[in-house]
Structures are given as C-alpha cells and as structure tokens.
C-alpha cells in the first residue's frame, strides 16, 4: 500500500493544477457568456466570401486615394 504515498501527493499536484486552470478560465472570461459559447463553434472563423469582400473594399479605398 506504500503506493498511496506517491499517488496521493501526485493527485494533489493535479488538483492544484486543476484549480489554477479553472481560475485561469474564469479570469479569461470563459464562463462569462455560457449562452453563446455552446454555439460559437458552429460559425466559420474565416469566411471566404467575407475575406474577399474586405479585400475588395480595401482595394477600392486605395484606388480612391
């Protein structure tokens, strides 16, 4: 049973890590808007159409100047 003297301190180190991770998540606002987070992954970060539209827009502005 001497194994518990290794494993339990190890689990406490993991616990400290888990608490640190949770605090980090709270601080970085991960828990601020639970209504939204559940759906965010459904949307594309990089929308091809949008990117092209912005580039076109920038190009136009450059032409104006």
């Amino acid at each position, binding site marked *: *049973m001497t194994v518990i003297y290794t494993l339990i301190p190890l689990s406490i180190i993991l616990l400290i890590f888990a608490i640190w991770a949770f605090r980090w998540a709270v601080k970085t606002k991960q828990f601020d808007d639970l209504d939204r987070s559940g759906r965010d992954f459904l949307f594309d970060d990089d929308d091809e*159409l949008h990117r*092209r539209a912005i580039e076109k827009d920038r190009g136009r502005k450059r032409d104006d100047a």
Partner: protein
Amino acid sequence: MHPEPTPCFHCGEPCPPNETLTRTHDRETVSLCCHGCAGALDWIQAQGLDSFYAYRDQPSPRPEEQTHWTLFDDPEFLQNHALTLGNDSLEIELSVPQIRCAACTWLMERVLGSYSGITQSHAHLGRQTLTLRWHPSQIKLSQVLTQLDSLGYTATVLTDETARRARKKERRSMLKRIGVAGLGTMQVMMFAAALYVGEASFIEDEHRSFLRWVSLIVSIPVMLYAAQPFFFGAWRDLKNRTLGMDVPVALALGLAWSASILATFLGVGEVYFDSVSMFALFLLTGRYLEMNARHQVLDAPVESRPLPMTLAKRRADGSFEQVPVAGLKPGDIVQLAGAQQAPVDLKLVSESGSVDTQALTGEFKPKTLAAGDEILAGSVNGATTLTAEVLRIGKNAFLGKLEHLARQAEATDTPESRWTEPLIRWFIAAVLSVSGFTLAIWWSTDPVKAFEYALSVLVVTCPCALSLAIPTAWTVTIRSLRQSGILLLNPTHLLAFTKAKHWVFDKTGTLTAGKFSRIGTRLHGSALSEDEALSIISGLEIDSRHPMAHAFSDVPPTPLEQVTQLPGVGVEGVLHGVTYRIRRAIGEEALSAFPEAACVTLEADGQPVLTVALDDEVRADARETVDHLKSLGITVSLLSGDTESRVSHLAKMLGIEHWQSGLSPEAKVAALDAIEESKVMVGDGLNDAPVLSAANGSITFAQASDLTRLSAGSVLLSNELKTILLLKAHAKRSRRVITQSFFWVLVYNVIAVPFAVAGWVPPWLAAIGMSGSSLFVITNALRLKRIT
C-alpha cells in the same frame, strides 16, 4: 379579404401588401418590408457575410432611423463612460438589447472586425452587451455605431458603469470560490470513500491517519478561501446583534471542521472533511444562482428607448450644441427633439407641446403642456421639438426623489423577512446547551469520551440540514420560476405571496394593458367599408411613433403616398388621388357610448369616413386573476393615480370593492401602510416604486423602468397578469417544502439526540445521520423543480 402578408426576410415582420422591395439571396428572391431592412441585407451581402442568414435562428431586428450618435465622439462623454487604456485606446461597454441569437454576435464581431481602428470587440449574448476597444484617433465611435444601427442594432449606454463592473467582479470571485470548493470536495470525498471502506473492512492506523491528514490539507483552501463569505457574513450578523442565515452555517462549518482537525491531531474520533466541503459547495452554488438572477435585472438597460439620460442641447450664443447631460445646470436652456426622453426635470419655454409620461405614471395618453409647465425627467417628448429650461437635476429631480422614497420604504424591514430567525436562534441555543450538558455529565467519568460524545451531539443535530432547508428550496424555486418567466429578486417575498390576505393592484399598465386599443367604431356614409378604412389608417400610422398608432398595428396597412405628419393636427397621405387625413373627432362624430375614450376620425378629401374610439384596454386575464384571488379568500384592492370616474368604472368591471383614486406616490404608500395585515403590491409605473418597496411582497412587469423593477421583489417577464397566480402557487409549494424539511430535522433530532447524549451513537452513525439529513433536505427541495 386580405391575403396572408409575406414575412420580411430580414426582420420577420409582415411586408405591406403591394410592396415591391425584393432582393436576391442565395439564388432565391426574397421580400423585405422596408428600406431599412433592405439596406441591412444589402450591406451584409456587400461584406460577404451572407452566412449570417444561415446561422441565425431568429428573425433580426428591424433598423429604425436614429440620429444621436455624434454624442459618442464627445471627449467629455467618453471620459465619463469609457475606460482609458494605454497606447491611446479606449474601451466602452454598451447595451445592445437587439442581440437575440448567437448569429447576431457573430455578425457584429465580423462587421466590427473589418474596421481598422477597432482593436477588439466582444458581443455578449447572455447580457446583451457589446464591449469595444478602439483608437479614437483612427476611427470615430459614432461612425461605427451608425453602421450597427443601420443593421438594426441600437447601442445604448449602460446606466451605472462602476456598479456594473463591481457586480461582474463579484460574480467572478464567487465562481472562483465554487471552483475551489467543487474540486476540493471531489478530492476529499475520494479520500473519505477510502476511509469509509477502510472502517468497514480493515485499515492500518498509519494509512488512516495519512488519509485524514491529506483530507485536512485539501479542505484548508475550501474552508479558508471558498467558504469565506459565510464566515464574514456571520461575523457581520453577530456584530449587528442579529442571527441571520450565515450564523448557523458558519457555526456548523466551523465546529465540524475544527472538531475534525482536532480528531486528526489526536488520532481519535471521526473526521467530517467531506461533509463540510460538500456543504460549502452546495451553499455557494445556491448563492451564485441567486446572485445571478439579481444581477440580470440590475444589468438590464434603463429603457429600450435609444440613449436615455445622455443627451440634451444647451444654448450658447443663440445656437444649440450637443452636450452630455452631466454637464447641465439648472437654468440652462435646452432643446428636446421629437420622441426624445427628458433626462432631467424641465420647464417648457415653447408655447405648447405634448409629452408621454407612461414611464412615470403609467398613463398612456399624451399630456398637453403650455409654456411654464413642468416636464418631469423620464417623460418622452411628442413629435415636435421643444425648447425648455432645466429646472432640477440629479437627486433633486423627480426621478431622484422617487428613488429616495423607494429606498426609505425599503429600509423599514418587515418582520416576515426574518421569520426563521427565532427558530434558528432557539435551535442553536438548544444544540449548544445539549452539547455542553453532555460534556459536563461525562467529564467526571472520562474527559476524552466526554469530548467525543459532545462532538457527536453537535454532528448528529446537524445544523447543516437546517441551514440548507431554506436556501436549497429558494434556489430551486428561483430556477423553476425563471423557466416560467418570473424573475424572483428577493426570495423573502415568497412568504408574503403565500400568506398575504390582501393583494393591491395599480390600474394603468397593471390591470389594463397600458396602451390604446380600438374599443368602438362608427362608419360615416358608405364610400368605404370599415376594413378598408382601418387599413388606410394603419397605412398612415405605420411610421408614426404616436401612442395611438399602436391601436392599428394588427390591421394590414394600405401603403399611401406623400404621408406627412401635421404637428398638432394629425397625419395625411394620398391614395388614388384622394387625400386621406386622420384628425381628432369633432362634435357629434364622437361615440357617445364611450365618453372617456379618445376619438379620431379618418376623412377623405374633407368628408368624414370613419370614427374610431380608442381607450386603454383591460387586460384579457385581469378578471380571471382577480376572481381567482378572491376565490382564495383574498381581499383585492385598487390604488390608482387616475381620475375617480375611470377607476370606479374599472373596479366595477372587475368586481373590486376597495379602490382609491387620484393618489400621489406618497399617498399610495400611506394607503398601503393603512392596511395592517401582510400585503402584496402589483404595479408597473415609476410612481409605484415607493409603494412596491413598502409592501411585504411585490410584483412588477419587465417593461417597467429600472427603479420600479429594483423596488419590486419579483418581475414578470411574460407581460401576462395571470402569471402572478403561478408565482403564488410556486411560493406555496416552496413554503410547504421548507416546512417539511424543518419538521424532518426536528423529528430526527428528538429521536437522535438522547442516544447521542447517552453516548450510544458511534461516530460513523452520526456521520450517516448528518449526511442523510442533509440529503433528505436537498432531495426534498429538488422536488420543487417539477413545474405544475
């Protein structure tokens, strides 16, 4: 007769018939209701954000014309409302009530991301806010907000920035405590499981003592950090010489924990590290949910109208300029634009004008004013621009005074809110004296045993179960009420909802709908049918902000040309060469059956066509609600600021015997105080705020102003009066569950305590009794989750 109108592709509102606004989206032709929506769609497509329409699960807000955005470039305004960050950038948090679904947040962030001066943007779905970081030297905020506005998202400044930030911090710190308590509890319970199994089979002393020490170490952060609020709360209560809910909690936690520490050091007795950690976790979770519900109401913007309280104009050498309201002083001359809300108390300088005071008094009919009349802060200007003098600001203004009255009424605490106090005091005293008694009688025999027995008395009696009974029942009730569309802000009001034998109602906006509806019509001649005439009125009123326009919103509108507002007269427009005009009914046109109603007439080229009588409509469920309350033996009464004839008419209609009319906010409080029994107040006007805080239980509607909602103990989100019956039913069930739990704790103690005093309860049995008791209380509370 009318074909089913096509819903607008952007906002979902019905498109006017014969409307030709169409666009192509995703290779299909779609119809749009107005140029605002079409503009929004065009812009979204030009940005290549077409996928927004695929992502959204709700129709989008309809853009309306706004003009007030330049204020957001004012350096003084920004200094008051925005946070200055390093490297010349600013951060502002704005309320955007139109954020409805996750796709809205996606669209807004994409739109804002394409501006180069904006460094960061985050839209919050739960609280409907937008946080922006930008460089004022590179981009003007007004430009950004105008763009968002054209998409239908109207940003509003938040009421109290500092308080809001403090609340956010409070929520986060509570969440961190829950995290620590939760993770700690899991760990300690794991060790406890090993210890329990060890006790049942075989465990070496060395291992047992090791597991206890580890449990002790893990429970330190749970007790000293996570459970801190309970200890501080108890300390505060004791300093104020009261016994609040925190006292037994702190006592239970403190005693069980110190006893466990002692047992660990001495290597005798039993440890309860798992129980105390779990106890702290449950209580913290309850507090967090309660806090969240309260903050949700506090964080909501004052009004859905754009930019309340932030903008006015002051004369400098005869011309007008935009200034923040904070910079106004009494005596300044200001201009109040059409449909704008007065941010401070004003005195009219223009010859005449009309204001809508619904937010203040609940009265929905516009009030006509002459030069020299007062315009109270919170009133909304009619169609014409008014010039006025600033009369009172800040705390001296009408709003400030009402707030003061409400706070005053709140400060006088009702005895009901502390109904459990004597019970808790008695219980704590009994537990402590029985433990002392146990210690005393066993001391002479064996001091170690005496200590062990006294401890098992403390554990067996389990103040935990008692202190859990109320918070768990409240937590579950708050959650299930939230699902039924009721926000419970002050759980102590639950008692009043079950016990009160007297329910008091306000009139306008509470028993009535608080808006114009058609109550009668009269056709002149036979040129047009009634439906046709109503459809023309609807077409004329469609873009009007006038409160009367609402009465026709259910009629499919006929589009007219050259629609013009005639200030002080009405509206006119042209259809097939005929000029139609809406004006006030004159002489015999008025409907004699409704003497109190406002009558308007539609005329075609000067000939009257149709007269419509408009009045405030009684809520469809008012009679049912009043009857139900009366069938329960409750006295229902009506307190109103309205005229006697109107109040008596309504009272007769709903069968309410007790009523008073023409009451000022102060008189309402006095009238309520005159009722000696416990009473519940239901109201919605700003003038009801003081009387709501004075009642034992109070209910208001979500549309009510900020102050009113904060003064009430609960808010009905559904705008249906009969929801109060649901609230009453929930309150009754929650009270029953609390009583059951108390009864259980009592019975259990009466049985267990004599055994514990006699020393016949081994520590493991005491622990089972303690956890069992708590579990019973929690599961009992969970039964409240089922919605009837």
